[in-house]
């Protein structure tokens, strides 16, 4: 048990990869065996990550379940894993959505099944690695590794325009990643200049003291990488193509998890490592402006969409605009709300893509005009769709409300105009979601092809019900989520707004022990 406890992150990280290897060894004709093995490993990946929830100590500052191993001493890269409250939530989101997406592919993928599950499981490991890495080099490796299986998932099993969407996704994201690499190298080299040791560990890089100008340049380098991933306006143009052309499970994982890596990058790297730049008023105004444009523009474009999947894709742009707005309000409510809203978006948009996938499998069209009155023939489906719609809009009792309200609270603290503009986004969100629901679900059945549609089967229910339950859980009892976020968010706020807690006569949160430059990582002569 000690071994498991000490290595739980590695076990969680490599379970999907082990599954991929097993699937690779199976004969490609044995499709049923492949499906079962893949699903078992995906679900096992979720089960091994569950203990993280129970063993996590909310009161403890710093990273938990840390694992260290030497990897490349010559350059100071180590195999360092660890999670805090923020990454805990994202890791759980990844394992849950991962197993749900793999389950949802059961009947949707009919050819080249073996490669599909291999790529998906490798992608799962890549995503988990991004959230768990404490070493910048390791983080970068996992960040890039993720791109290849996602490219294949879109490019082989995607829609009519899959090749264009896949290569656009890859090149766009790669462009951001390589510029991010330059930012990482600047931090790495600056640390060596200041402290004489070579390290990529973010717990050590946090003690860097960079001049504001350097910080701003590194921030901009990181910004390109993360903003393309989120995606923030105006780097969002790859998203509609990738989402629409990807297979259902691909869209779920793309929207549910991959997009969160951009916001995770901001909250894990840009804010703590570059506090001067993050708090700089020009940067804040720039980020807030882009966020507000994303919220309102994303919502307006969603309103106009005729393609169901594209509507949901643009709604992601709008929702993640809220998340970036919350982050750059730089207040505890803003940042905590942003992280919770990221989880919420994963749940609700993931569910929305599953919903589109379910009707697509039946009718093979995504045109909204092709549907209408579906609630008459698919009542269970309609109920779940309504719940998810409410979640996406931000109605109280569901998760969306908690996230959006907290973000608005955090933003209002800083600038009332910004909060006001963001609230318009909520109204527009209600507009496009409710109109979508009305066009597809309410009223009489307009298209005779819809008359015989089957309602949800057990497998489809099994993919959606967990998300519904989770949505209600966060919506009705969000306290545990805020509790795990308390420490990491407080530390970040303390870094970017040093006087925040003192001004409010609130006890300054405990600082994590800064690991000093280690002697074994020697300077290169």
């Amino acid at each position, binding site marked *: 048990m000690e071994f498991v406890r000490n290595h739980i992150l590695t076990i969680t990280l490599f379970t999907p990869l082990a599954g991929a290897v097993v699937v690779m060894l199976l004969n490609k004709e044995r499709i049923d065996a492949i499906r079962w093995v893949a699903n078992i490993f995906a679900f096992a990946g979720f089960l091994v990550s569950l203990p993280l929830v129970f063993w996590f100590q909310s009161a403890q500052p710093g990273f938990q379940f840390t694992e260290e191993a030497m990897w490349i001493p010559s*350059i100071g890269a180590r195999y360092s894993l660890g999670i805090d409250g923020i990454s805990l939530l994202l890791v759980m989101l990844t394992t849950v959505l991962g197993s749900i997406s793999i389950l949802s592919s059961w009947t949707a993928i009919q050819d080249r099944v073996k490669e599909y599950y291999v790529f998906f499981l490798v992608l799962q490991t890549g995503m988990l690695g991004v959230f768990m890495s404490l070493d910048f080099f390791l983080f970068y490796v996992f960040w*890039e590794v993720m791109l290849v299986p996602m490219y294949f998932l879109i490019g082989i099993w995607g829609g009519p325009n899959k090749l264009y969407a896949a*290569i656009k996704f890859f090149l766009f994201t790669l462009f951001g990643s390589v510029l991010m690499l*330059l930012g990482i*190298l*600047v931090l790495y*080299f600056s640390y060596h200049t200041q402290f004489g040791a070579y390290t990529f560990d973010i717990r050590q890089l946090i003690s860097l003291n960079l001049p504001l100008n350097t910080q701003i340049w590194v921030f901009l380098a990181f910004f390109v990488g993360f903003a393309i991933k989120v995606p923030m306006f105006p780097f969002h143009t790859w998203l509609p193509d990738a989402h629409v052309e990807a297979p259902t499970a691909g869209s779920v994982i793309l929207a549910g998890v991959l997009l969160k890596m951009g916001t995770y990058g901001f909250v894990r790297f840009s804010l703590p490592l570059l506090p001067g730049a993050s708090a700089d008023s020009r940067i804040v105004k720039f980020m807030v402006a882009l966020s507000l444009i994303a919220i309102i523009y994303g919502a307006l474009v969603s309103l106009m969409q005729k393609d169901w999947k594209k509507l949901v894709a643009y709604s992601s742009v709008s929702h993640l605009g809220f998340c970036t707005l919350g982050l750059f309000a730089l207040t505890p409510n803003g940042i905590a709300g942003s992280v919770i809203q990221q989880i919420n978006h994963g749940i609700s948009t993931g569910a929305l893509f599953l919903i589109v996938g379910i009707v697509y499998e039946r009718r093979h069209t995504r045109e909204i005009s092709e549907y209408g009155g579906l609630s008459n023939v698919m009542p269970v489906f309609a109920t779940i769709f309504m719940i998810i719609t409410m979640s996406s809009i931000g109605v109280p009792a569901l998760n969306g409300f908690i996230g959006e309200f907290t973000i608005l609270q955090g933003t209002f603290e800083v600038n009332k105009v910004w909060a006001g503009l963001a609230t318009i986004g909520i109204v527009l969100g209600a507009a496009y979601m409710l109109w979508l629901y009305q066009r597809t679900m309410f009223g009489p059945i307009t298209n005779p092809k819809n008359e015989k549609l089957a309602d949800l089967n057990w497998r489809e229910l099994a993919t959606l019900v967990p998300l519904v339950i989770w949505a209600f859980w966060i919506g009705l009892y969000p306290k545990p989520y805020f509790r795990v976020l308390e420490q990491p968010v407080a530390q970040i706020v303390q870094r970017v707004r040093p006087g925040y807690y003192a001004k409010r006569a609130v006890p300054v949160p405990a600082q994590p022990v800064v690991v000093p430059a280690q002697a074994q990582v020697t300077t290169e002569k």
Partner: protein
Amino acid sequence: MFNEFFSRQDLLLIKPAVLLALFGCGILLTDLLHERRHKYLNAVTALLGLGFTGVQLALIQRAMSAAGYSEVSGFSGGLVVDGFALYFTWIFLIATAIAILFSVRYLEVENEHHGEYYALMLFSLVGMYFLATAMDLITLFIGLETMALSVYVLAGFLRGDRRSNEAAMKYFLLGAFSSGILAYGFSLLYGLTGSTNLRAVADALVARPSGDPVVYLALITTATGLLFKVAAVPFHQWAPDAYEGAPTSITGFMSTAPKAAAFAFLLRVFLVPLAPLRPAWEGLLVVVCVLTMVVGNLAAISQNNTKRLFAYSSISHVGYMLLGLVAGNETGLKGIAVYLLVYVFMNLGIFTVLVALRRKDIIGDEIEDLSGLFFKNPVSAVFMLIFLLSLAGIPPTAGFLGKYFIFLSLIETRHYVLAVIAVVFVVVALYYYFRLVVMMFMREATDPERLNISPGVAVALAITLAMTLVIGIYPEPFIRLAAGSVLVPFR
């Protein structure tokens, strides 16, 4: 009387080259004894020769470290075996060995399986050895020509194929032309300094007053000749034609071992005799690097012939390596060493797969020939994917490591704009590499004939893939090796 001119140490230092030459000549003789179907024995002999040479090299290395010398010179300073020379010679040996492995079957299919092929490869290795170890302008030039002449003949080895003859002719003419320019540069250096020893030239150039136009003329002509040899833009025009027309196995060889040798030559000259002129040539190199990356990458996008595509890809890789020279610090030079090592393996891996595509009537060098490769031979398609990812520089493959050091060296020496340009072209490169991936994984096979993987090809594939992944995932020992090879620039 013999001992007055040559010491035992001198002879020991050139023993690797002597062994290679002997084995080459031996192949020429034993080739006459072999029947048609036993011609592969020439390859075995060649590999044996490489083995003996490797052992000799290891013995030299061991003797040097036992005695505590970091470098040993011979022939009155005309030759030096240091970490740099040893590292590069090992690269040449391994690259040639892998090239021999995949050449066997290729030549059988082409019906040109003559022993001269392997002999010429060993002779070019002799030239390469001198390029890596020489400390004298004339010796360097001789080594260059020995290598180049062998490769010219190898490029035209398919005597009945017009493209091969044309490629050899173009390569020979442009190679001779550039050697002429280089010789002119060397003669100017001699005229200015009164010596052909690299270190003496450096000393003399330091003492010279700056601003002397003849010095600049010497620099320009020497640099031009050197850049021709590595096919940097704007001296790259010979490469695509030579690569496309040459037999595929020779293209694989040409793009790795002679290119590494030319690069070793370039480094030796820029870092020793031309080192005092760094302020003059640094700017020139920056322009060359940017042009090379731009032209190399953009031209590759529209190619339909895989050999031409990889020619332009090689050109762009040279651009990246030259960036390490522009940075010039230890990270930069270590980066060049790592990059070359990694580049050799991934390029040879690509060409191993391309060689395997050559069948009865199909040359196998059009992009369409790769279509549906995943369905015909999934293993080689996946290997090809990994090699392409490595060429693009995606972790955790070896190619990322080379680029990592180059980018780091640019950041360390404050060449931020260059760094941004370099990383942006990584994205461009990935586009044309993935054109091949689309062909292999997402298109139906145009002809259903299965690939014939001979034992030599299988071994070559295994070695190149293993190294591409191992260096990417566990690079520590290789980084240490490369660090040992860094040439301390003359101060």
